[in-house]
C-alpha cells in the first residue's frame, strides 16, 4: 500500500490492523532440541493450548509463517539452514528465541560447535529464558510479542526503522 510508505495511515486503522495481525499469527516451529518438546507441549497439548491466543502452529512451510520459534541449541552446522529458512519467511516476520541455548549458548557456552545465541544470525524479538522454559513461559513470550505487535507503527517498520514499543 502506498499509504503505508508515506506514513499516512490513520491511527485507528493501524490499531485495527495490528490487532488483527497479532491474533492471527502462524507459527513455524523450528524445534531443534529439548525446548522443542516443551514447545510441542505448548502447541499440541490440550493443557497449554496455544491456539487460544490465536496462534496457529501448522503452517505447511516457512513461506506461510509469520512467526518462528527457535527452540533448542543452535550449532554451527545448523546455521545455514536457519538463515535460509528465515529468509524464506515473508515480511512482517517475528522471531522468538526459546530457551537458554538459543538465547546465548546456554549450558554449552564453551563448546566448539555451538553458536552462542541465535541472535548472532537472525534478529530476535522476544527471548524466553529457561532450560527448558515451561510451556507457560513460552505462552507469556507470545503474549509479550503480541503486545509488541499491537504497539507497532507499520510505516516505521516498512521504512526499516527500529521499532519503539510502548507509550
Amino acid at each position, binding site marked *: 500500500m502506498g499509504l503505508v510508505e508515506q506514513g499516512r495511515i490513520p491511527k485507528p486503522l493501524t490499531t485495527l490492523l495490528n490487532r488483527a495481525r497479532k491474533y492471527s499469527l502462524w507459527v513455524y516451529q*523450528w524445534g531443534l*532440541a*529439548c525446548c522443542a518438546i516443551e514447545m510441542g*507441549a505448548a502447541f499440541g*497439548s*490440550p493443557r497449554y493450548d496455544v491456539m487460544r491466543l490465536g496462534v496457529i502452529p501448522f503452517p505447511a512451510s516457512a513461506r506461510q509463517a509469520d512467526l518462528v520459534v527457535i527452540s533448542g541449541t543452535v*550449532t554451527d552446522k*545448523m546455521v545455514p539452514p536457519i538463515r535460509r*529458512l528465515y529468509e524464506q519467511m515473508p515480511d512482517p516476520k517475528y522471531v522468538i528465541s526459546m530457551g537458554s541455548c538459543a538465547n546465548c549458548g546456554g549450558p554449552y557456552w564453551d*563448546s566448539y560447535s555451538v553458536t552462542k545465541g541465535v541472535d548472532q544470525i537472525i534478529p530476535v524479538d522476544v527471548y524466553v529464558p529457561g532450560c527448558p522454559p515451561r510451556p507457560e513461559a513460552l505462552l507469556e513470550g507470545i503474549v509479550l510479542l503480541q503486545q509488541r505487535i499491537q504497539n507497532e507503527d507499520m510505516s516505521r517498520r516498512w521504512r526499516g526503522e527500529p521499532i519503539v514499543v510502548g507509550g
Partner: protein
Amino acid sequence: MTVATDWQKSAYIGGQAADARVHVEIEAEGMTLNIGPQHPATHGTLRIVVRLDGEQVVWAEPVCGYMHRGYEKLTEVRTYPQITTLVNRIDWLSSFANEVPFILAAEKLMDVEAPPRAQWIRTVLFEMARIANITLFLGDMGVQLGALTPVFYAFRDRELVLNLIESATGGRFHPNYDRIGGLKEDLPKGWIAETKAVMGKMRGYCDEMEELLMGNEIFQTRTRGVGVIPSAIGLSHGLSGANIRASGIDWDIRRDEESPLAWKACDWRVWTHPDGDSFARYWVRLQETREATRIVDQLLDGLPSGSIMAKVPRIIKVPAGEAWVHTENPLGEMGYYIVSKGGLGPFRCKIRSASFSNVSVLPWVLRGTYVPDVITILASLYFILGDIDR
C-alpha cells in the same frame, strides 16, 4: 535444430509411446532427495540424503551432526555435579535415565554405595522416564504415518507423568536429581499414592493406543513387513533396546546384569518379537511401557525406608581408575566409560549413546524401500537427536 534437454526428450518419447499405446521404459537418472535437517518427521535435526529411482530408494545416507554440542569435550572441563546437569540433555525425553549410568560409574570408581531407598527411588524414576519417553513414541509414530490424534493423547497423558517427576524433583524434564551417593532429596508426601494412580491411567493409555493405532488396518498394512532388520545385522551394527528385541534377541540389561538398582527386586518380563519389522518394534515398546508401569507399582509397594544419601565428601573427587557402566535406557543401551585421574572432573568420559548405533543401520535398511516407508522406518527405530549427536 534446437538442443533438447533430457527431460524434454523423455517427455517426447513418453508422449509418442502413450499415443501408440506402447510400453516403453525410459532410463532416467535417479533423483536425489534431501529429507531434513528441518523436517517434521525426523525427530529433530537429522538430514537423510536419499537417491531415488522412481519411488524406490537406491541409496541412503544420514548426515548427522546438526545437534553436535561437543559433550565429550565439555565433560573434561566440568566437575561431576556439573556433568550430571549437562548429561540430562543427551536423551532429552527421558532425562533421568541419562544421569543414572553416569552416577553409577562414578560411584563404582569411588566405591560408594547409595542406600537402598535411594536405589529403589532411582529405579522408580528411571522407569517413569521410560514411560514418559515411550508414551510420546507411541503417539508420535502415529503422526509420522498420518494419524494426528494419538499424539495429542500422548502429550496429554505424558503431562501426568511429568507432573509427578516435577513434584519429586523440581523439573519437568532435566530433573538433575541424581547425586553421587544418592539423591538430592526425598519424595514429597503423597507422591507414592498419586504415582500408583497415574500408573493405572498410563496402562489405560497403552490400552487405548493398542486399540486405536495398533489395531488399525492402515497402520498394520503400513508397518508389517516394512524395514525388517535381521538380528545378525542388528547386532553387528550395535542396535540395542527394543529394536533388537523386536528382531528376536532376548537381551535386556536390566535382567541380565548385576546392577545396584532395584530391578531384580520385582517381577517382570522381557518382551521380544520374532519379526523384526516396524510393527514389531512398535509392539515391543507398547508392551514394555505396560511392563514399566507394573515395575513402578511393585517397587512403590515395597519401598524401603531410610536415608537417601550416603556419606560422601562435600567436594567430590573420584579416585583414579576406569569404569564402564551401561543401562537399558528407553532408547537402547546407553553407557558411560569414565577415565578418572583423581581430579574434580573426569579425564575422559566416553558416552555410548544408543541412537548413534541405531541410526547407523539406516543405510542398510533403507535400501530398496519406498519413500513413505522411509518415514515409517525412521519412526519405528525411534531415535532422539541429542542421543545421536551428543
